[in-house]
Protein backbone atom coordinates (compact mmCIF):
# COMPACT_ATOMS: atom_id res chain seq x y z
CA UNK A 1 0.00 0.00 0.00
CA UNK A 2 1.24 3.47 -0.81
CA UNK A 3 0.04 6.47 1.17
CA UNK A 4 0.48 10.14 0.43
CA UNK A 5 -1.00 12.98 2.40
CA UNK A 6 -0.57 16.73 2.26
CA UNK A 7 1.57 16.80 5.42
CA UNK A 8 4.07 14.40 3.88
CA UNK A 9 5.02 16.86 1.16
CA UNK A 10 7.15 14.99 -1.37
CA UNK A 11 7.12 11.66 0.44
CA UNK A 12 5.19 8.55 -0.51
CA UNK A 13 4.97 6.00 2.28
CA UNK A 14 5.04 2.31 1.33
CA UNK A 15 3.39 -0.03 3.83
CA UNK A 16 3.47 -3.81 3.62
CA UNK A 17 0.22 -4.78 5.33
CA UNK A 18 1.08 -8.46 5.01
CA UNK A 19 3.99 -7.96 7.42
CA UNK A 20 2.05 -5.88 9.95
CA UNK A 21 1.51 -7.28 13.44
CA UNK A 22 -1.99 -7.16 14.88
CA UNK A 23 -2.87 -6.30 18.46
CA UNK A 24 -6.32 -6.65 19.97
CA UNK A 25 -7.69 -4.04 22.33
CA UNK A 26 -11.22 -3.90 23.76
CA UNK A 27 -12.42 -1.30 21.26
CA UNK A 28 -10.03 -1.65 18.33
CA UNK A 29 -7.62 -3.73 16.29
CA UNK A 30 -4.18 -2.15 15.90
CA UNK A 31 -1.97 -2.87 12.91
CA UNK A 32 1.66 -2.07 13.61
CA UNK A 33 4.58 -2.11 11.24
CA UNK A 34 7.54 -0.25 9.85
CA UNK A 35 7.78 2.00 6.84
CA UNK A 36 11.14 1.65 5.15
CA UNK A 37 11.84 3.93 2.19
CA UNK A 38 14.57 6.35 1.12
CA UNK A 39 14.93 8.95 3.94
CA UNK A 40 12.28 7.15 6.00
CA UNK A 41 12.45 4.48 8.70
CA UNK A 42 9.31 5.04 10.71
CA UNK A 43 7.01 3.00 12.90
CA UNK A 44 3.35 3.20 12.04
CA UNK A 45 0.12 2.14 13.72
CA UNK A 46 -3.34 2.00 12.22
CA UNK A 47 -6.25 1.53 14.61
CA UNK A 48 -9.37 -0.03 13.19
CA UNK A 49 -12.64 0.24 15.09
CA UNK A 50 -15.85 -1.76 14.59
CA UNK A 51 -17.18 0.83 12.14
CA UNK A 52 -13.95 0.75 10.14
CA UNK A 53 -14.19 -3.01 9.60
CA UNK A 54 -17.73 -2.63 8.26
CA UNK A 55 -16.82 0.42 6.17
CA UNK A 56 -13.81 -1.31 4.69
CA UNK A 57 -15.87 -4.32 3.68
CA UNK A 58 -18.28 -1.78 2.14
CA UNK A 59 -15.41 -0.51 -0.02
CA UNK A 60 -14.45 -4.06 -1.00
CA UNK A 61 -18.05 -4.71 -2.01
CA UNK A 62 -17.89 -1.90 -4.55
CA UNK A 63 -18.37 -3.39 -8.02
CA UNK A 64 -15.33 -1.51 -9.39
CA UNK A 65 -13.08 -3.08 -6.73
CA UNK A 66 -14.58 -6.53 -7.27
CA UNK A 67 -14.07 -6.33 -11.05
CA UNK A 68 -10.45 -5.26 -10.41
CA UNK A 69 -9.87 -8.23 -8.07
CA UNK A 70 -11.49 -10.65 -10.52
CA UNK A 71 -9.24 -9.34 -13.31
CA UNK A 72 -6.10 -9.58 -11.18
CA UNK A 73 -6.72 -12.74 -9.17
CA UNK A 74 -9.39 -14.77 -10.95
CA UNK A 75 -11.32 -17.50 -9.15
CA UNK A 76 -8.34 -18.53 -6.99
CA UNK A 77 -8.88 -15.66 -4.57
CA UNK A 78 -12.50 -16.66 -4.04
CA UNK A 79 -11.45 -20.23 -3.26
CA UNK A 80 -8.80 -19.00 -0.79
CA UNK A 81 -11.27 -16.64 0.87
CA UNK A 82 -13.92 -19.35 1.15
CA UNK A 83 -11.36 -21.45 3.04
CA UNK A 84 -10.54 -18.51 5.30
CA UNK A 85 -14.24 -17.82 5.87
CA UNK A 86 -14.86 -21.44 6.94
CA UNK A 87 -11.90 -21.22 9.34
CA UNK A 88 -13.22 -17.88 10.62
CA UNK A 89 -16.67 -19.33 11.35
CA UNK A 90 -15.18 -22.37 13.11
CA UNK A 91 -12.91 -20.14 15.23
CA UNK A 92 -15.85 -17.88 16.04
CA UNK A 93 -17.96 -20.86 17.18
CA UNK A 94 -15.05 -22.23 19.24
CA UNK A 95 -14.23 -18.90 20.90
CA UNK A 96 -17.91 -18.09 21.31
CA UNK A 97 -18.63 -21.38 23.07
CA UNK A 98 -15.63 -20.83 25.36
CA UNK A 99 -16.91 -17.38 26.29
CA UNK A 100 -20.40 -18.84 26.86
CA UNK A 101 -19.03 -21.57 29.20
CA UNK A 102 -17.00 -19.00 31.17
CA UNK A 103 -20.10 -16.84 31.41
CA UNK A 104 -22.17 -19.78 32.71
CA UNK A 105 -19.56 -20.64 35.34
CA UNK A 106 -19.41 -17.05 36.50
Amino acid sequence: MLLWSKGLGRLLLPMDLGKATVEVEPDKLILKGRIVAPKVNWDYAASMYEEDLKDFLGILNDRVVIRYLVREEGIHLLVQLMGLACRFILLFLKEGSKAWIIGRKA
Partner: protein
Amino acid sequence: MDYWSQGLGRRSALNIGLVREHLDLAIEDARTAIRTVLPSLVARLDLPEGEKVVLSGETRPPIVWRYVTLLGADDLKSILRLAMSQEAVTFITRFPGRKKLFVKLACLMAIFFTRYLGAWIAQKVTLGFKEISVQEKRNEGNDRRERGVEPKEKTEIPAESSFPQR
Protein backbone atom coordinates in the same frame (compact mmCIF):
# COMPACT_ATOMS: atom_id res chain seq x y z
CA MET B 1 -9.34 4.47 11.01
CA ASP B 2 -6.75 6.31 13.05
CA TYR B 3 -3.37 6.40 11.37
CA TRP B 4 -0.22 7.38 13.19
CA SER B 5 3.41 7.28 12.11
CA GLN B 6 6.64 8.73 13.47
CA GLY B 7 6.70 11.27 10.67
CA LEU B 8 3.62 12.98 12.10
CA GLY B 9 5.77 14.20 14.99
CA ARG B 10 3.78 15.78 17.78
CA ARG B 11 0.55 15.70 15.84
CA SER B 12 -2.08 13.26 16.95
CA ALA B 13 -3.20 10.52 14.59
CA LEU B 14 -4.84 11.21 11.25
CA ASN B 15 -8.47 10.16 11.19
CA ILE B 16 -9.09 8.55 7.81
CA GLY B 17 -12.75 7.82 7.14
CA LEU B 18 -13.51 4.65 5.20
CA VAL B 19 -17.16 5.34 4.38
CA ARG B 20 -17.57 4.59 0.67
CA GLU B 21 -19.83 7.60 0.03
CA HIS B 22 -17.20 10.02 1.40
CA LEU B 23 -14.34 8.67 -0.70
CA ASP B 24 -13.25 8.94 -4.31
CA LEU B 25 -12.59 5.47 -5.63
CA ALA B 26 -11.00 4.69 -8.97
CA ILE B 27 -8.91 2.05 -10.69
CA GLU B 28 -5.93 3.83 -12.13
CA ASP B 29 -2.32 3.44 -13.03
CA ALA B 30 -0.12 4.52 -10.07
CA ARG B 31 1.55 7.25 -12.11
CA THR B 32 -1.73 8.75 -13.22
CA ALA B 33 -3.01 8.78 -9.64
CA ILE B 34 0.12 10.37 -8.17
CA ARG B 35 0.43 12.88 -11.03
CA THR B 36 -2.60 14.72 -9.66
CA VAL B 37 -0.90 15.39 -6.31
CA LEU B 38 2.84 15.31 -7.07
CA PRO B 39 3.12 16.27 -10.75
CA SER B 40 6.78 17.32 -10.61
CA LEU B 41 7.95 14.14 -8.89
CA VAL B 42 6.19 11.42 -10.85
CA ALA B 43 9.16 10.82 -13.17
CA ARG B 44 11.55 10.36 -10.23
CA LEU B 45 9.38 8.14 -8.08
CA ASP B 46 9.77 4.39 -8.17
CA LEU B 47 6.11 3.56 -8.59
CA PRO B 48 4.65 0.09 -9.06
CA GLU B 49 3.47 -0.92 -12.52
CA GLY B 50 -0.11 -1.72 -13.39
CA GLU B 51 -3.48 -0.59 -12.21
CA LYS B 52 -4.25 -0.01 -8.53
CA VAL B 53 -7.30 0.81 -6.46
CA VAL B 54 -6.98 4.51 -5.71
CA LEU B 55 -8.76 5.83 -2.65
CA SER B 56 -8.60 9.55 -2.09
CA GLY B 57 -10.29 12.10 0.08
CA GLU B 58 -9.70 14.31 3.08
CA THR B 59 -8.87 13.23 6.60
CA ARG B 60 -11.37 14.14 9.32
CA PRO B 61 -10.77 17.02 11.78
CA PRO B 62 -8.72 18.09 13.70
CA ILE B 63 -6.12 17.63 10.93
CA VAL B 64 -7.79 17.99 7.54
CA TRP B 65 -5.36 16.93 4.83
CA ARG B 66 -5.91 15.61 1.35
CA TYR B 67 -4.67 12.02 1.01
CA VAL B 68 -4.26 9.41 -1.70
CA THR B 69 -3.91 5.68 -1.06
CA LEU B 70 -2.86 3.14 -3.66
CA LEU B 71 -3.92 -0.42 -2.96
CA GLY B 72 -2.82 -3.37 -5.05
CA ALA B 73 -4.49 -6.77 -5.13
CA ASP B 74 -1.96 -8.05 -2.54
CA ASP B 75 -2.88 -5.23 -0.14
CA LEU B 76 -6.58 -5.99 -0.50
CA LYS B 77 -5.87 -9.67 0.10
CA SER B 78 -3.85 -8.83 3.23
CA ILE B 79 -6.74 -6.76 4.59
CA LEU B 80 -9.23 -9.53 3.84
CA ARG B 81 -6.95 -12.04 5.59
CA LEU B 82 -6.78 -9.68 8.57
CA ALA B 83 -10.57 -9.36 8.63
CA MET B 84 -10.81 -13.15 8.90
CA SER B 85 -7.83 -13.75 11.18
CA GLN B 86 -7.63 -15.23 14.67
CA GLU B 87 -7.15 -11.68 16.03
CA ALA B 88 -10.36 -10.51 14.38
CA VAL B 89 -12.21 -13.49 15.91
CA THR B 90 -10.79 -12.62 19.35
CA PHE B 91 -11.82 -8.99 18.82
CA ILE B 92 -15.36 -10.02 17.97
CA THR B 93 -15.91 -12.74 20.56
CA ARG B 94 -14.02 -11.59 23.62
CA PHE B 95 -16.12 -8.55 24.24
CA PRO B 96 -19.88 -8.44 24.85
CA GLY B 97 -22.35 -7.13 22.30
CA ARG B 98 -20.27 -8.10 19.28
CA LYS B 99 -22.55 -10.79 17.89
CA LYS B 100 -24.33 -8.14 15.86
CA LEU B 101 -20.97 -7.11 14.43
CA PHE B 102 -20.25 -10.73 13.48
CA VAL B 103 -23.60 -11.02 11.72
CA LYS B 104 -23.01 -7.74 9.84
CA LEU B 105 -19.50 -8.75 8.79
CA ALA B 106 -20.74 -12.19 7.74
CA CYS B 107 -23.51 -10.57 5.62
CA LEU B 108 -21.00 -8.21 3.99
CA MET B 109 -18.66 -11.10 3.25
CA ALA B 110 -21.56 -13.10 1.77
CA ILE B 111 -22.39 -10.14 -0.50
CA PHE B 112 -18.71 -9.93 -1.47
CA PHE B 113 -18.55 -13.64 -2.35
CA THR B 114 -21.76 -13.46 -4.37
CA ARG B 115 -20.69 -10.38 -6.31
CA TYR B 116 -17.22 -11.81 -6.85
CA LEU B 117 -18.64 -15.03 -8.27
CA GLY B 118 -21.07 -13.03 -10.43
CA ALA B 119 -18.27 -10.81 -11.75
CA TRP B 120 -16.11 -13.84 -12.50
CA ILE B 121 -18.91 -15.58 -14.40
CA ALA B 122 -19.67 -12.35 -16.30
CA GLN B 123 -15.99 -12.03 -17.22
CA LYS B 124 -15.85 -15.64 -18.43
CA VAL B 125 -19.04 -15.25 -20.46
CA THR B 126 -17.79 -12.02 -22.07
CA LEU B 127 -14.43 -13.59 -22.89
CA GLY B 128 -16.24 -16.68 -24.18
CA PHE B 129 -18.40 -14.61 -26.54
CA LYS B 130 -15.34 -12.75 -27.79
CA GLU B 131 -13.50 -16.03 -28.44
CA ILE B 132 -16.56 -17.49 -30.20
CA SER B 133 -16.92 -14.44 -32.48
CA VAL B 134 -13.18 -14.53 -33.32
CA GLN B 135 -13.44 -18.26 -34.08
CA GLU B 136 -16.52 -17.72 -36.29
CA LYS B 137 -14.69 -15.04 -38.29
CA ARG B 138 -11.73 -17.41 -38.74
CA ASN B 139 -14.06 -20.21 -39.85
CA GLU B 140 -15.81 -17.92 -42.35
CA GLY B 141 -12.44 -16.95 -43.82
CA ASN B 142 -11.39 -20.60 -44.08
CA ASP B 143 -14.69 -21.59 -45.78
CA ARG B 144 -14.31 -18.86 -48.39
CA ARG B 145 -10.74 -19.86 -49.11
CA GLU B 146 -11.80 -23.51 -49.48
CA ARG B 147 -14.61 -22.52 -51.89
CA GLY B 148 -12.28 -20.23 -53.78
CA VAL B 149 -14.46 -17.21 -53.14
CA GLU B 150 -12.55 -14.03 -52.68
CA PRO B 151 -13.72 -11.70 -49.98
CA LYS B 152 -16.07 -9.04 -51.23
CA GLU B 153 -14.45 -5.79 -52.08
CA LYS B 154 -15.57 -2.83 -50.12
CA THR B 155 -18.18 -0.89 -52.07
CA GLU B 156 -17.14 2.69 -52.28
CA ILE B 157 -19.75 5.31 -51.74
CA PRO B 158 -19.57 7.96 -54.44
CA ALA B 159 -18.49 11.33 -53.18
CA GLU B 160 -21.54 12.94 -54.72
CA SER B 161 -24.91 11.44 -54.07
CA SER B 162 -26.67 9.91 -57.05
CA PHE B 163 -30.02 11.06 -55.76
CA PRO B 164 -31.47 13.94 -57.69
CA GLN B 165 -30.78 17.24 -56.06
CA ARG B 166 -33.65 19.51 -55.30
